[in-house]
């Protein structure tokens, strides 16, 4: 497996970890409010954005530097 693919898979695993126990145990709270959102909803929102950015990185790693793929 090429090293870029390894990093991409690591990023993907990070995406999953932020959304499940035990992380949910720490973020499952109402306060502090951020951007007017209760904390758990804010976390969900921010983590979705983090996942998106991770996927952008994955794409750059695999499609750009990984070379020829059909």
């Amino acid at each position, binding site marked *: 497996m090429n090293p870029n693919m390894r990093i*991409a*898979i690591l990023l*993907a695993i990070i*995406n*999953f970890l932020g*959304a*499940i*126990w035990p992380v*949910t*145990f720490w973020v*499952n*709270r*109402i*306060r502090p*409010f951020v*951007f*007017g*959102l*209760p904390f*758990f*909803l804010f976390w*969900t*929102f921010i*983590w*979705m*954005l983090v*996942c*998106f950015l*991770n*996927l*952008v990185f*994955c*794409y750059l790693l*695999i*499609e750009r530097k990984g070379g020829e*793929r*059909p």
Partner: protein
Amino acid sequence: MTSISLWIILGWLILSTVVGVMAGVKRKFSMEEWFVGQRGFGLILFYVVAAAEIYSAFAFLGLAGWAYKFGAPIFYAPMYNVLAYTLFFFIGPLIWRYGKAHGYVTQPDFFIHRYQSPSLGVVVAIIGFLFTIPYLQLQIMGTGMIIQLSSGGAINWQAAVIVSSLASIIFVTVSGLRGIAWTNLLQAILMLVTMFAVGILVPQKFFGGVGQMFQRLAEVSPQHLILPGKSGTMGLGWYTSTTLMSALGFWMWPHLFLTTYSAKNTQIIRRNAVILPLFALALIPVIIVGYTCFLVAPGLKEPDHAMLITLTRFFPPWMAGLVGAGGTAAAISTSSALTLSACTLFARNIYQRGMNPKANDDQAARLARWLVPVVTAAAVALTFLRPKMLVALLLLGYSGITQFFPGVIFGLFWKRVTKAGVYAGMIAGIATLLLINYGLKASSPYGLFFGFWGLLVNLAVCLLVTLCTSPPPKEALDRFYAAK
């Protein structure tokens, strides 16, 4: 007054039908065209077909309904979506590549070829077909409810169901997946616009902003904002298991397999996996609307109706019309894809591969086309007989479909897995979830989601049986993996 909203919805329905029919009317009819759009969809067409298929009536009514009734547990929905796209980034290109190389047009085609077992293909097709039906029923119910409520009761939901089903029968029969894709281009745009519009306008009107609304909710009903939610039953274990199961099971849906095959190349798939999470963000405003409705109209008997009741009660009719059209769009774009998928499963894998191997591709495709009105009518009849709450239907469908996970994932990545293992695991998994859902009646063990137990049993049995049976023949495997 409500007639304005009704005309908006009706006009939208007609426009969608016309666009859907136009998309395919001049194309030559064939299996590859009608099932998977000649595998020629580019970035935008693939994006809208996927997004509009994925975001269904549930994204409008069910989400708001759950936020209203239970609160925070519903955050699993936008979250698992993004995780499902993360998974798609890695498995989507493989599913596509094998599909293209070996000419698969349905999900069971993959099972048949990978495991060298026509009978496994038939079983997968039957299971896929059966669990697609509750999901289809959900969309049909959703459409009916949306039109009834946003017309202020002027049209009853049964009539609405019949009219909207006719529209989707017309464009699916004529244009197949391409028709769905082009109508979805319209649906996706309307859905996005309405989701963000209501998410901002509704809390604005009652509380002066989203922040103030949440401040109020934190005083009135703080249980709504954290797990285990208002009912107190959906805790951290439920949340993690439901999120994981839904994310893993997501791409096992037969209609999403079909859609995956429609991409032009693997780059289109990866790019879509990257940008699909942005569409999932639109679910958050809908959750916020559900919360607002809880504050302004508490105690509704049907939480799924909360959003539309609030809109028709407090907002000008054109807005209810717009949201009604958006919700109808969401429901129809998904139901048409599900109908297509159910028909292809039956015609290709139950009929052509199972009952009558002599039938050629053209005959199978023509049968699938004739089945569109039949399957739609059957689903409508079921809906009239047995309506149920939206999310419960969705979770039942998901739990069943997720049982394909070991067969697909091991099939892609693990050469050692055997036909017997996949068979046994799948059957054990489905037996488990039926037992928990219908047999125990009580709550699922340890509060984990019942479909998740099914998946765990499935994986365990699959591994065990695989290791007890002899490895699959090498030549067939080499032929399968040669496409990589």
